[in-house]
């Protein structure tokens, strides 16, 4: 069972976890990753705006999710990604992977978020405290994190 959603509104981690568990009754483990809008003293931001490519985003995450299911023998996975303007501390993305045992669930989550960050068409713009805006640059470290899983 795969679920991929892109939405402006917030989500509830408990509700999403229950929904996945309901359709994966044989799961002995559910791994999760929650991404949050980050602001810190070195680079304070007022907000992020997330833009995406409707259609391709869902297709690309779906492709990654099907690969994760096959590769790690997952029973199901769920991805929710928000778009639009988000304040520091707000949730951006939730990745859940259900499996019979913990290692597959944890590996599935790591694989999904690493590949999502390097191939799902989202772009972040930072609204900085000084009133300026700046598109976030892609990080080579993210490419390296995805590459360690091997090619899709």
């Amino acid at each position, binding site marked *: 069972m795969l679920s991929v959603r892109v939405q402006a509104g917030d989500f509830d981690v408990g509700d999403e976890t229950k929904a996945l568990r309901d359709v994966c009754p044989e799961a002995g483990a559910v791994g999760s990753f929650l991404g949050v809008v980050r602001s810190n003293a070195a680079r304070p931001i007022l907000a992020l705006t997330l833009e995406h490519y409707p259609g391709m985003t869902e297709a690309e995450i779906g492709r990654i999710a099907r690969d994760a299911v096959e590769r790690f023998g997952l029973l199901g996975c769920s991805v929710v990604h928000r778009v639009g303007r988000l304040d520091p501390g707000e949730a951006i993305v939730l990745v859940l992977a259900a499996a019979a045992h913990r290692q597959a669930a944890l590996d599935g989550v790591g694989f999904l978020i690493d590949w999502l960050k390097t191939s799902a*068409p989202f772009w972040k713009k930072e609204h900085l405290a000084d009133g300026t805006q700046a598109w976030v640059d892609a990080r080579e470290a993210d490419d390296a994190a995805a590459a360690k899983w091997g090619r899709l």
Partner: protein
Amino acid sequence: MHASVTLLYFAWLREKIGVGQEQYALPDGVRSVAGLVGALRQRGPAFAAAFESKGVIRAAVNQVFAKPDDAVAPGDEIAFFPPVTGG
């Protein structure tokens, strides 16, 4: 009469060009992503600036990542964007 393609631009590419989506008549002889980029760069200063750093810009044809040599044809949806930064 030229058959057209749908062009989409995202993030700073969209801001530099000034539109997010347009119909574009595919010029004669343009049959690849690289050929299309070459034609777009001739459309004026905004396009030239947007496509200046060719190595940076990613492309998708019909919502699948594409390489410079990949084919483009009338009716295709072709998107250009910077490296992705979601998650």
